[in-house]
């Protein structure tokens, strides 16, 4: 299966400063990939290279199997920049324009435009696009990206400025697009959104991909297990003697949750049983994407791994 978007060792320098360094990844049909990183990490630069706005200083890549500079590949791509700009025209005309420049057949544009206007709640909008609120402008930019029914969506901060209802609807649209075999690659600071819908995430730090993995692998890193125990109350002497770090968290007067290192479950289950406790459940500890995001730097620096080593280590088979 040919990836819809592929970066192979792409680098980009601005006036001697490396903004992207050896960035390699691919996005396949039917997956949603999140692109995470602090401000200035190079996310917008990478997306701009993908749509041909910037030229890579090194490395190669492809968009739907063609070079980034080939405009015909963009016929099947929908792009939303992080700060959309519009001509002096109403929402409907702005979406028609997007359809026309994407090369949609003229006869199919009116019906499709009506559809996306309704989908993004812009049908009632009569104001000039430039005079819409920031949230409405963001919805309009998304409508422009969706109008040509693209195979690949490249979205730079798509949920910024959207209200909760719009975020929810966008999420549903992206999930429906994935089900239809389309690919979505988006950057975001809304980690909860990324966590909810992404199949895979890439962490970018100072222009390098420091971590690349599936959401499942990231969230269920089986380094710690969580045991839910009944019959050993929080104040019980056992917990004090065992000196668990962190201390058990209280679920109710009779139920506590404790975190133990993976591999020691037999030892702890026996201890709990011998002390009269009853094991209710045992699960791998689920980490939030936020905590992983915040510790990504420290993890990378502490391990001393080069970005490529991290990539090899993290990349799913």
């Amino acid at each position, binding site marked *: 299966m040919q990836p819809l978007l592929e970066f192979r060792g792409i680098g980009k320098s601005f006036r001697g400063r490396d903004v992207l360094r050896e960035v390699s990844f691919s996005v396949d049909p039917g997956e949603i990939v999140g692109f995470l990183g602090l401000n200035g990490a190079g*996310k917008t630069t990478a997306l701009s290279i993908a749509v041909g706005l910037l030229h890579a200083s090194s490395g190669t890549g492809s968009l739907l199997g063609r070079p980034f500079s080939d405009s*015909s590949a963009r016929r099947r791509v929908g792009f939303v920049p*992080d700060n*959309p700009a519009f*001509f002096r025209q109403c929402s409907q005309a702005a979406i028609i*324009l997007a359809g026309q420049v*994407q090369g949609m057949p003229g006869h199919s544009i009116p019906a499709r435009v009506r559809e996306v206007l309704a989908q993004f709640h812009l049908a009632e909008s009569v104001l000039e696009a430039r005079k819409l609120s920031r949230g409405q402008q963001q919805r309009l930019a998304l409508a422009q990206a969706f109008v040509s029914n693209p195979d690949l969506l490249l979205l730079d901060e798509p949920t910024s400025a959207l209200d909760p209802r719009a975020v929810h609807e966008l999420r549903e649209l992206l999930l429906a697009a994935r089900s239809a075999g389309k690919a979505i690659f988006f950057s975001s600071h809304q980690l909860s959104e990324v966590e909810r819908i992404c199949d895979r995430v890439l962490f970018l730090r100072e222009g390098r991909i420091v971590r690349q993995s599936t959401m499942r692998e990231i969230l269920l890193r089986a380094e710690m297990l969580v045991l839910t125990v009944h019959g050993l109350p929080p104040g019980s002497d056992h917990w004090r003697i065992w000196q668990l770090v962190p201390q058990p968290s209280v679920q109710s007067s009779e139920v506590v949750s404790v975190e133990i290192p993976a591999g020691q479950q037999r030892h702890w289950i026996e201890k709990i049983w011998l002390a009269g406790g009853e094991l209710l459940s045992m699960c791998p500890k689920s980490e939030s994407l936020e905590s992983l995001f915040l510790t990504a730097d420290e993890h990378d620096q502490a391990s001393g791994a080069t970005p490529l080593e991290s990539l090899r280590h993290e990349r799913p088979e």
Partner: protein
Amino acid sequence: MRKVATVTWTLLLHNRWQVLLLAAWPWLFTLLLQAGGDPSPEDVVSLLHKECLYGLALIAILSSSAFGNELRSRRIVFVLSRAISRQQYLTALWLSALTPGLVYVLSMLGTGMVLRAAAHLSVTSLLFLLLALLILMLWVSALGLMFSMLLPGFLPWVGVSVAAPFILYLSGSRPYLGSGMLVQYILDSGLAQESTHLPGLASASSTALQASGLLVGAYFLFRRKDIYPLGD
């Protein structure tokens, strides 16, 4: 071609006030001239000559600022991230700067016809004058676009306003450069007698050729240019 026309039309609609101003400009001058009573033939010819030079200056401003305006407003990101090649976009940008010039020339033709009787103007001479102006507009708009690929901010306009007179001065003594000869043709044009020759066919074709060369140059520069979006 359809995409070029779409983007050109969108740019023109966006800048419709500029187009309307250029359309109105010759009529305003004509009204001012006629406000003081029946103008003399010399006044009419002088007005038409001045309008030609103003028209060239206005097109130089429009063409040298077109790219910078799109870049600053980030509308260029919307267009270039779609299925539009850089060549198509540059062509649309050039046409959107040149079309107001065409409107201006048509407006001048209208005012020329109004003033024709008063100044005993020859229609053929007027048409040749406007043809020469149109060819010079092709040239100056291509020069403006070329400079906007080379220099940032308002500097393209500075570049054009230095380079264009210099080239015109040089080409006055070098007929193969053409453009200066065309300006000379405009300024020497008496407009009263029937003109029997085109405004120097060699000068006209040489100027048009230069315009094509400048456009090709602008395209090669644009093809390698990074478009910096905001953000990240």
